[in-house]
């Protein structure tokens, strides 16, 4: 059967992520208990897999690397229609940069077994590097197309896709197995249904650590990461503001005057 792997990341809820701030004194992160949710773009990656499955039949595995709580987003994907869930969770995975993350996910994909297509989001809402999809593809030695907006044709081993470019697109023909990273233009993700949640109860999530994956501690997490954060600084972009007062008309009039006087109108 056609096998699809969808990579999903647990991220701090983007609606509350602005509450994570750097403490100006200690220069450390103040997390403020922001809840973890499914990375928004990964819903589109999962939807791409679900739509393929509806058309041609397929088996969908969902794969996430993260803390044990990330199991919740894997469960959510199972409730949305994925068949099997995999969580890579181990203390040793913590602090990974994009390189170590992609390496670990590639190892996970290999362990899941033969596959035809991997879908990722174009970017996460937190790190947002866009590196993970292309780096997974490189570790798996298969091609990748990033930012896809449309799957134009599935023709056996050859897929034709449209991928976003500045003010346009490129049309790419690619041989599967391949990795695709998806944009919001690709589809409209479905919502959770009650029956989906019930069905998901029977589906399992397999959890693997470094031992099961057969990777060394030195190749994952912070230790396996070429990139590290060296310093955190606060930034000062403050200007001295003049708040214009009065009725709406007066404020608008004053603003036009100020801008005209500054020579920028």
């Amino acid at each position: 059967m056609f096998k699809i792997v969808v990579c999903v990341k647990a991220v701090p809820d983007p609606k509350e992520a602005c509450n994570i701030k750097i403490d100006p004194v200690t220069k450390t992160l103040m997390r403020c208990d922001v809840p973890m949710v499914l990375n928004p773009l990964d819903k589109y990656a999962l939807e791409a897999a679900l739509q393929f499955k509806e058309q041609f039949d397929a088996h969908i595995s969902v794969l996430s690397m993260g803390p044990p709580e990330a199991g919740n987003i894997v469960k959510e994907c199972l409730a949305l229609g994925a068949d099997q869930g995999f969580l890579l969770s181990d203390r040793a995975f913590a602090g990974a940069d994009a390189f170590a993350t992609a390496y670990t996910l590639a190892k996970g994909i290999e362990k899941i077994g033969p596959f035809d297509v991997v879908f990722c989001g174009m970017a996460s809402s937190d790190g947002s590097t866009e590196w993970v999809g292309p780096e997974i593809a490189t570790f798996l030695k298969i091609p990748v197309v990033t930012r896809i907006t449309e799957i134009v044709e599935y023709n056996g081993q050859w897929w034709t896709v449209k991928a976003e470019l500045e003010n346009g697109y490129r049309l790419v023909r690619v041989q599967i197995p391949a990795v695709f990273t998806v944009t919001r233009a690709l589809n409209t993700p479905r919502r959770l249904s009650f029956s989906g949640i019930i069905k998901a109860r029977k589906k399992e999530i397999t959890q693997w650590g470094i031992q099961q994956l057969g990777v060394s501690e030195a190749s994952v997490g912070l230790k396996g990461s070429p990139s590290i954060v060296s310093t955190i600084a606060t930034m000062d972009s403050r200007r001295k503001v003049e708040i214009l007062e009065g009725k709406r008309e007066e404020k608008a009039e004053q603003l036009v005057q100020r801008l005209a006087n500054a020579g920028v109108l």
Partner: protein
Amino acid sequence: MEKSCGPVWVIAEQIDCRILSVSFQLIGHGRKLAAALDTTVEAILLGHQMAEHPRQLFAAGGDRVYLGNDPELAVYQPEIYAEIIEKLAKEKQPEIILIGSTSMGRELAPLIAARLDTGLTAHCIDLVIDGNNVLESRIPAYGGLLSIICPDRRPQMATIAAGVFPNPEPDGNRTGDIIPIEVPKEIPQRIQTLKVVREEPEGMDLESATIVVAGGAGAGDPAGWRKIADLAQVLNAALGATRPTVDEGWAALETMIGQSGKMVSPELYIGVGLSGELQHMVGISGAKVMVAINNDAKSPVFEQVDYGIVDDCREFVPVFIEKIKAYREKLKTC
């Protein structure tokens, strides 16, 4: 010349045989990094009918250009481009590789980084050489600035958006070596760019605009967004966006300003219904005058602008438009 480390590389990008401005900007900044490291700046240029173009890269500050000039390289072909650069990098051992944060660059950079077993920093807003001769990439996050380094592996890699660094003043007297590179023959043909379609961008070009009006989630709905777009039109300004408005589908991704979008440096910036999050605000550098319109007097945006209007933007903007029109009329009659 005795060099203390490998060169600084810039992966130059061309579209229809025109080198993108970000490539020149990276060469310009690459010169500073190279000076700090006592090394050279080299560009990789892949395309077709590009024989004359290395001159422009020398004028911008390049010392050497590796030129792949072949019909197969006319448009970006991921595996061929990555293969060429991987092979060359393994041979020449660059200290640093800089790549423009374009749609090509954002795909090609991680392909190269993973092949070279090294780190890659995204969305940099500054690059400096630290006390240990290590590249420090600065990125905005969590209301502050993170410095990311790749201490143990080489090359050190980063992607940077157009407009982060200034255009270098071209020096037509500068010259350098051109080293031709061959297209490798043994590449698996697993992926092919069949066609590239570029449409004329709608509206004004953000990067060169003297006035930028940026709209945020406070627009509320498409009708509210329309009013902000009208303001931009009346001011003959480019219309920019924040991430939530792109997510809502009101604005195109190309118009997003900030860390993961465009960098602008207008004379006048007007932020409407946006909260002044750092990831957006880092996209605006050196604006002479900044204005915010927001209905929340406590919004952090008001700490970052010169003039503030506390009001519902959907109500205020139409009134503001009328006042601007009236002012323009008056100018005409004087």
